[in-house]
């Protein structure tokens, strides 16, 4: 199963792997916001937490359909399903490699973009912490959505419709933690709830994703 993770990471960084796709989207999105809403620092300061979280969420969404679709198209998924690796493990490894190639770069890039959006100084630790805790949930939920829609040609729309509502709690608590941090308040409570969502998603969704894959491979 570690072999699968290594292979997916190697594929992501090679030509056409789509490693930088989400990160580039996030950078462009956050850079364009000041052009759209105007350069008033007060306005930017207010909306920065929400914009950063929304940008990270949409960037995550952008790369979801690659998780299983490519393996399904070239027949690798059939072969993986007959290999002596549990599909639950395959789903968990896919979620992990999606997080390493998508979530982790977003966590690292977010403070720089916070600077662009005039995010108040006390909010930075909360921004990094909330993204670090929340993006694994985005990857796990997204892997489940990708498993549900694997076999559907141009399934991207359906995937977005399925996944976005499931992203709402993560977005609410993630952005809330940063908003509270920006106001100088303690943001431990939303952070704990965020961690709860992530742990729950990580515990349950690989099994759900494997069940969805089994049905789609029939």
């Amino acid at each position: 199963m570690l072999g699968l993770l290594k292979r997916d990471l190697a594929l992501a960084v090679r030509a056409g792997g789509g490693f930088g796709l989400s990160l580039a989207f996030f950078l462009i999105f956050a850079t364009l916001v000041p052009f759209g809403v105007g350069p008033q620092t007060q306005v930017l300061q207010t909306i920065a937490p929400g914009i950063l979280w929304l940008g990270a969420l949409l960037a995550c969404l952008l790369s979801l359909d690659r998780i299983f679709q490519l393996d399904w198209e070239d027949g690798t998924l059939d072969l993986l399903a007959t290999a002596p690796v549990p599909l639950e493990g395959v789903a968990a490894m896919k979620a992990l490699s999606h997080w390493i190639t998508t979530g982790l770069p977003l966590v690292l890039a977010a403070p720089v973009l916070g600077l662009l959006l005039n995010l108040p100084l006390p909010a930075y630790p909360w921004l990094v912490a909330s993204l670090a805790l929340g993006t694994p949930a985005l990857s796990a939920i997204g892997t489940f959505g990708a498993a549900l829609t694997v076999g559907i040609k141009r399934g991207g729309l359906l995937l977005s419709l399925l996944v976005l509502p499931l992203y709402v709690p993560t977005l609410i608590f993630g952005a809330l933690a940063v908003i509270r941090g920006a106001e100088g308040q303690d943001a431990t409570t939303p952070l704990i709830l965020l961690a709860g969502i992530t742990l729950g998603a990580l515990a349950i969704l690989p099994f759900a994703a494997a069940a969805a894959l089994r049905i789609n491979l029939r």
Partner: protein
Amino acid sequence: MLLTVTDLSCARGSAQVLAGVGFSVARGDALILRGPNGAGKTTLLRTLAGLTPPLAGAIDCAPDAIAYAGHADGLKAQLTVAENLRFWAGAFAAHDITPALDAFDLHPLADRRAGEMSAGQKRRLSLARLLVTGRPVWCLDEPTVSLDVENVARFAGAVEAHLATGGAAVIATHIDLGLPNAHTLDVTPFMARRLRADDPFGGDPFAEEVG
């Protein structure tokens, strides 16, 4: 017997394709599946491989005994031949990919990216994967597609060597591989009634038989 199938019914999607299939394959045996296009050879192989659950009947086989190779090659274009094989060797807990490279003469191509190879070369790599699975029963779906005469012989040699070491193979193919101990199973008699070409009401759910 390595693999015994009794009274098996298979479905593709929601449509029943085959009914009442029964056969058994012993060590050293090869079973060649024949039948026209759409007869259900692929569905039967996918059911044997455990990808599709059977509608009825039993597949009696040791767990993790079957290695499946379908129409798609299952290769990653960005990885080299050796990397592709090593990935599958890791998934099947094998360590040495040299015998697999030997069997299909892939040594000269070992560092070539799979995306830069011809269809026949990809097929050879895909078939070489079977050797790293270390599994006794090979279920192969049209394995000789895009192989030239020389490589069909090479493939037949690999299957023969596999049979000689106590393995077995179920192969859907339209050509004669010249394998020893090869039995042929025509799946046409097992086709579910509504899909049979000689059934005048085939495919029409509203058709009524006129007395």
